[in-house]
């Protein structure tokens, strides 16, 4: 990405600019003006305001607000709901991201090495990505239903007691994780498939000649390093998407039972848009944004260190 930036930057600041150059610069400014104005109004300014709000006790519906310094942040640290919410989001991410990455990678390698049914498998695994998540969450709710749900009916056939998937605080986060994995594998899979197809066949032959006889060796020496950039991207996007989990929680559990599925965006939504505590919710948003920034920063760091083969 760094070279992308560098390439975008024309050499500027020549002392004497010709009329044509001035005209070109003017045209460029006019063309990019709408985008820049909207970028400022809908992204930069709101981010600045959210940071500002984070230092106030602003509540919607009350006139005026006062600055309270870091009070919101100190309150966050002792807020049980928020801490629970951070922890739940971490657990959810720690389950969903790695499983959906490795499952997608494994399936992509299986599909890639199989001659028949390629497009069928790709379609089958990708279908959840193209489906309305709120709608499919409803289907999962039925599948997970403790008494009339097919999953527990199936378990009962095997003589196993089925858990109360979405209804018990012990299992709710895991049930949501299953839905999360189901929903995100297809996306990762398609990216991995593209990455695998881009690996030149000759590399495998070369590795074979050089003594990498087993499939495992070829995988370790060719596939894995060549997939590096794809894997890094898939990892980042999986983690970010898992941190942003909201739809399933809002639709199915509303954070319950007993706050066992309270996650970051849901807590922000509740505080900010239901209880209208804008100041407090803004402080939470700043924490959320900080998490995203750290994740992106880590991605850039790893990317810079990575060897590029392309």
């Amino acid at each position, binding site marked *: 990405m760094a070279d992308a930036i560098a390439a975008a930057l024309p050499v500027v600041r020549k002392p004497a600019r010709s009329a044509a150059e001035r005209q070109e610069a003017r045209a460029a400014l006019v063309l990019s003006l709408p*985008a820049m104005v909207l970028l400022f109004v809908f*992204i930069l300014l709101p981010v600045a305001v959210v940071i500002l709000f984070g230092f106030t006790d602003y509540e919607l519906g009350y006139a005026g607000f006062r600055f309270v310094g870091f009070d919101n942040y100190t309150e966050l640290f002792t807020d049980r709901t928020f801490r629970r919410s951070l922890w739940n989001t971490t657990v959810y991410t720690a389950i969903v991201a790695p499983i959906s990455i490795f499952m997608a990678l494994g399936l992509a390698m*299986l599909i890639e090495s199989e001659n028949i049914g390629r497009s069928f498998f790709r379609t*089958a695994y990708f279908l959840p990505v193209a489906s309305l998540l709120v*709608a499919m969450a409803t289907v999962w709710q039925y599948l997970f239903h403790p008494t009339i749900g097919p999953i527990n009916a199936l378990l009962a056939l095997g003589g196993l007691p089925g858990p109360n998937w979405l209804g018990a605080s012990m299992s709710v986060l895991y049930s949501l994780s299953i839905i999360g994995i189901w929903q995100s594998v297809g996306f990762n899979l398609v990216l991995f498939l593209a990455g695998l197809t881009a690996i030149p066949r000759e590399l495998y032959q070369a590795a074979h000649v050089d003594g990498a006889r087993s499939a495992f060796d070829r995988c370790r020496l060719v596939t894995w390093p060549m997939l590096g950039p794809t894997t890094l991207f898939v990892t980042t996007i999986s983690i970010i998407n898992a941190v942003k989990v909201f739809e399933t929680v809002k*639709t199915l559990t509303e954070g319950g039972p007993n706050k066992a599925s309270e996650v970051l965006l849901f807590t922000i939504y509740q505080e900010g848009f239901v209880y209208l505590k804008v100041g407090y919710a803004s402080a939470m948003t700043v924490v959320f944004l900080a998490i995203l920034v750290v994740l992106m920063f880590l991605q850039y760091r790893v990317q810079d260190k990575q060897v590029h083969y392309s």
Partner: protein
Amino acid sequence: MNAQTFTLGRAVRLSVLIFGAAIFLAPYVFMISTAGKAQSDIFSSSLSLIPQHWSYVQNFAKALTRVSMTRLLFNGVAVCALIFVFQVMIAIPCAYAMAKLKFRAARLMMMLVMLGLLVPIHATALPLYVAFDRLAVLNSYFALVAPFTISVFGIFLFLQFFRAIPDDLIHAARLDGMSELGIIGRVIVPNAWPAVTAFAIFSVVAHWNDLYWPLIVVSNQTYATPPLGLLYFRAAEAGDDYGALMAATLIITTPLVAAFLLAQKRFVEGITMTGLKG
């Protein structure tokens, strides 16, 4: 699995793939099956896939009357179309300028775009909500569309695509007396068509599925988008009338899934392109 009697090869591979696909498709099978079951069937035999009493008509009738499905689908299409049209009209000229024209602000703009890529709607939602509330524009298409008219991701994607278009093409067009807008319309966009379709898919999938922002700015059925409408339907549906719920789910999921099945190749290309370049 008795596949181990074969050589460790295709048999195992295929059975793993088929088993996995069956699990991934199971929710759809149950959705279609349950949408046709009467309440009694749902309670008595959850594992039989063929309904004993065919109730598709009743369930669909319920789904269509409780919440206006046509309204929801219309809103979904209108909001997605408006967002996409604005995004493209605003991002393409900007990306063209940044990719092909020389001007001083380019460096600063690139930084702003990279910064913007970091910020999801969840981070800007609070101030935007307060502002929209003050302006009394909540519950409107404007509220649903406005924050997404700027897509920094779109600028980023187009920028990379435009850079690959040869400068000679643009110089030739300029010598022919074309204006910069003419160049964008007749040289750049036709040459960047794959990027435009890829972005269209990315944008439509994202906004068709989005629940967060509509949930915040819309509080009545008139402007509800499909995900929000389904939430209303769930709330209106007391108890466990899963037949009607599944029918509603089926109606709401079908458009995008059908689009995906019809234009699969484009979808996959689009996801790959937007994914790998983002």
